[in-house]
Structures are given as C-alpha cells and as structure tokens.
C-alpha cells in the first residue's frame, strides 16, 4: 500500500471516531435527546469509552492475525480517542449532573466507590496519554511497555465502574465484558502464539485456489 493510502486510512479512522460525538451533539441540538440531554450525553459517551477501549485492545490481536500494518498505525490514535471520550464523560458528569459544583465533585470522588473506580481508570488513561509520544518512549525505555500494560487494568476498572451503574439488567454489560474477556484471552501467551499460525491457515486455502 502506498504511503498516502495509510494517511487516508488514519484520517478515515479519525473521522469515524469523531462521528458518534457529532451525532450525539446533533441529537441534542435538534431536541431529540429527551428531557435530560446532559445525561443522554453522559451515558452515550460512557459507552463510547468502552467501544474505543475495546477497539484499541483488538488491534494487537488483529495485527498478529493479519500482519497488516494499518492496525498498528492507528493504535496510538484510538488510545487517545479513548482518553478523549473519558475526559468528555467526566466533563458531562461535572457540568450536567453536578452543575459545576466542584466541591461536590470532590466529595463525590471520596464517597462513591464507582466514581473512585472511574477516576482511577481515567488516571490510568491520562498516564498513558501523556506518555504516548516518541520522546517519552525513549525516556522511559523498557518501563514504557510496563506502564502501558495499565490498559488492562483500565479495562477492568471501566467494566467495574459500569457494573456498579447497571442494576436491573446485565445484558449490555455482559456483552462488553465478554468482548473484553475474549480480547484478554487472545493475549494469553500460548493462545497469542497461535494467532500468526491461524493467519497461515487462512491463507493457504486461498493459495490453493489461485
């Protein structure tokens, strides 16, 4: 693939990640988001974080499976989108639910376990976000990889945060948790080693056809 094609691919991913935010905002703008638009944004963006996180975590297995360079190229971008969604989620909570009463934000963070867990996950995302540049990679050396393993912890904390919010029907949560668990299983070394082999097995029959 020529170089400009990869640039286009990255731009396309950027636009695709922006689309949900634009869509939800437009729903609010045309009064189609119900009587509590702030909460509508809060909850949708909250689910958006999980989407972005799960997509980010699917890139490594996909690369192993396909060896396509494109997946690696968008990993940092999707990671930063996850952070962006998470920051937007916190902003929605602070502005629309707490009415920008920051003293209340302080007391809520201390008192509510699900908010503590959410803030911890956000802290992890921020730590990865600010070190997602070449300078930090050079500076941190080996520790950079260790630091970015925090993403697994963030997934666990994010799912826990969501679990404590849903109370009556677990269907949606179970779906996210199942996808998350699947992506984690693909990282268990013996299974992870099978992925490139699986690629060859997919390729072989094609060759036979040709």
């Amino acid at each position, binding site marked *: 693939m020529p170089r400009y094609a990869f640039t286009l691919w990255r731009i396309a991913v950027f636009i695709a990640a922006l689309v949900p935010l634009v869509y939800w905002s437009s729903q*609010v703008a045309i009064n189609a988001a*119900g*009587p*509590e*638009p*702030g*909460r509508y*944004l809060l909850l949708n963006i909250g689910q958006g974080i999980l989407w972005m996180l799960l997509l980010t975590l699917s890139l490594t297995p996909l690369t192993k499976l396909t060896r396509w360079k494109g997946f690696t190229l968008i990993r940092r971008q999707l990671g930063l989108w996850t952070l962006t969604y998470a920051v937007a989620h916190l902003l929605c909570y602070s*502005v*629309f*639910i707490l*009415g920008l009463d920051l003293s*209340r934000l302080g007391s*809520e963070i201390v*008192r*509510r376990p*699900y908010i503590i867990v959410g803030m911890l996950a956000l802290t992890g995302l921020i730590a990865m976000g600010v070190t997602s540049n070449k300078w930090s990679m050079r500076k941190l050396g080996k520790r950079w990889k260790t630091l970015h393993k925090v993403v697994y912890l963030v997934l666990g904390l994010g799912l826990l945060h969501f679990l*404590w*919010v*849903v*109370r*009556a*029907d*677990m*269907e949606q949560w*179970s779906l996210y948790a199942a996808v998350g668990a699947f992506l984690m299983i693909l990282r268990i070394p013996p299974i992870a080693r099978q992925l490139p082999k699986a690629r060859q097995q997919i390729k072989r029959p094609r060759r036979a056809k040709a």
Partner: protein
Amino acid sequence: MLIKIAKPGDLRESNVTPESIYLSRRRFMGGVVGLTAGAGLALAGRAQAAAADYQDVPAGNPPGWFKPKLDNAEWNSVVPADRDLDKLAPFDDATHYNNFYEFGTGKGDPARNAASLKTQPWSVVIDGEVNNGGRFDLEDIAKPSRLQERIYRLRCVEAWSMVIPWLGIPLGDVIQRAEPTSKAKYVRFETLVAPDQMPGQDSSFALIDWPYTEGLRMDEAMHPLAILGLGMYGRELPNQNGAPFRLIVPWKYGFKSIKSIVRISLVEEQPVNSWQAIAPDEYGFYANVNPGVDHPRWSQATERRLPNSLFNPNIIDTRMFNGYAEEVSSLYQGMDLRKHF
C-alpha cells in the same frame, strides 16, 4: 357453650375502622387547615375545564366507561402551591422518559415497546386479609369513586424529578371497599407478568424477579395523598406510564409507584419490594424522599427538575417527603428514617 351466629345485619370486624386510619384521617384534616394557611398544597373543590390545559396532548383510546368518568372529573383537586416553580412537564417528556423495566431498561424503551401491552379488558385481584376480595374488572373498581386530578411532583430515586398531572381515585377508597380485617397491616401490589407483551420480562439477564412488587404500610395506603392512577394530562394513562392502573405515592421515590397493577393484597407481614430484594443496601421498604439520606451511589440532597438543558441543568434542592412533609410526616413520628430509608 355460647356460639355466636352473626345476623346478616350485624356489623363485622372488618367494618371497624382501624385506629391508625381513624387517626390518620384526623391528622389529615388537621393538615388541611395548615394547608389553607398557605404551605404545601391548595385543595380546590372547583371543577375546571381541563380541555384547554391539554390541547396538545394526543387523544388516547380509552375504554367506553372512561369517558363519562373523565367528564365528571374533579379537576385541579390537588395542585402545587407554587405553580411557577412546579411547572408541568411537557406530555412528550413525561411519556418518553420512563423507568418501566418490563419494557427495557433505557429511558426511551417503554415508549418504544409498550404498544404491545393489552390494557383492555383489565381485571385486578384483591385478596389477602379482606372480607370482600375477588377478581374485579377495572371498571368496577373505578366506578364508585370520582376521578380526581392530582398535580404531583414525581421524584425519581435517580435524582431527577418532573411535575405530572395525574387522574386517579383515592387508594383508601378501594381498600375500604375490600373490607380489610384487623390482620391487614400492609398492602402489597403486583404488576402484570406477560413476557409476550413485556419484552423486558423475557430478558434472561434481568435481575428483577417478576412480578415487580411494591408495598405500603396500611396507614400510608390510607393516606389521602396516595392514589390509584387511571390517567394523566386529561386522558387515560399511556401504556409506558403504567396503563391502565397504577399507584402514585408522591412523597416516596418513584419506584414505589408501581405500574400496570393486577393484584392488590392486604397482608399481615411487611412485603419485600422488588428493588429492596435486588439491592437492600440501596433501596428500602419506605423509600421516602429524604434529602438527608444519600443513595450509596449519589447524593439525594438535590434533584434535576426535568426537562432541563445543557446550559441549565435545573438543579434544585430536594425537599423532605418531596415537599409533602406537612401532610405525611406524622406517619413516621418516632421512626429513625436513616435506618428505615
């Protein structure tokens, strides 16, 4: 040995008005005097043409018996003291922002899915500690009582609220006609179970053990503010709002106001309501609106009055008993409301 055989004209035990009700009525009358002095509500006997108020509300498809009841309704029977502060929620918001998990857990799910609910015919079983129990057509339950319009604040446990104009009949009337015995200490309510009409009940991930169940103490149920709702906004109840027959207890969190009721049982033991069964640390039996007792996951000190907007979240202070303290606080005298949340 003396065997007492009651003559048909004799009074039965169930005819005796329980002391708690007798006292609660006196308290209420006392409260009314306080009200007219200007505090919580304005009780107005005047009948007012409501048609003009609800011009934009789409007409429903009520059963034949509902129309004459509507024509004879007592409009504005109970209204908020400050109608600028407690403005009616638009009909569209009140019908598209609902918690009715039988139709899904999203706020928009009930409006989307509730069309499948069959509300005609509808019958209700009244049983337990009563002398006059049985299965009754909804029409017969509603018949003896005049429809009253009650404009109440509805405070959801999720810290949002709306002001809704209900149409209903006093719950106390219905209970009295069932002739409760002296053993009747609590009232237990059940929602319809019909997974073919209620997709939420079909979900294998649902944590609620259907039927949705609620309960009130006898004196709470007999309180004049507690009503059984048949309509809102000058028409019958839309399906997503608990058609055709629901409870409305304005001083308690919204989840107490159980929807689409098919069974009312007078019982001796305190019932376990559905939310208490799922999460007893978060939801109690009483569930009185109380700004001083937080939900473990959020503060109950304030509420978002809906509809709101991004620029104005419309956060207001939550009032004790949702602003009905004057009428109901005597029911809970001497109780630790921190413990009995």
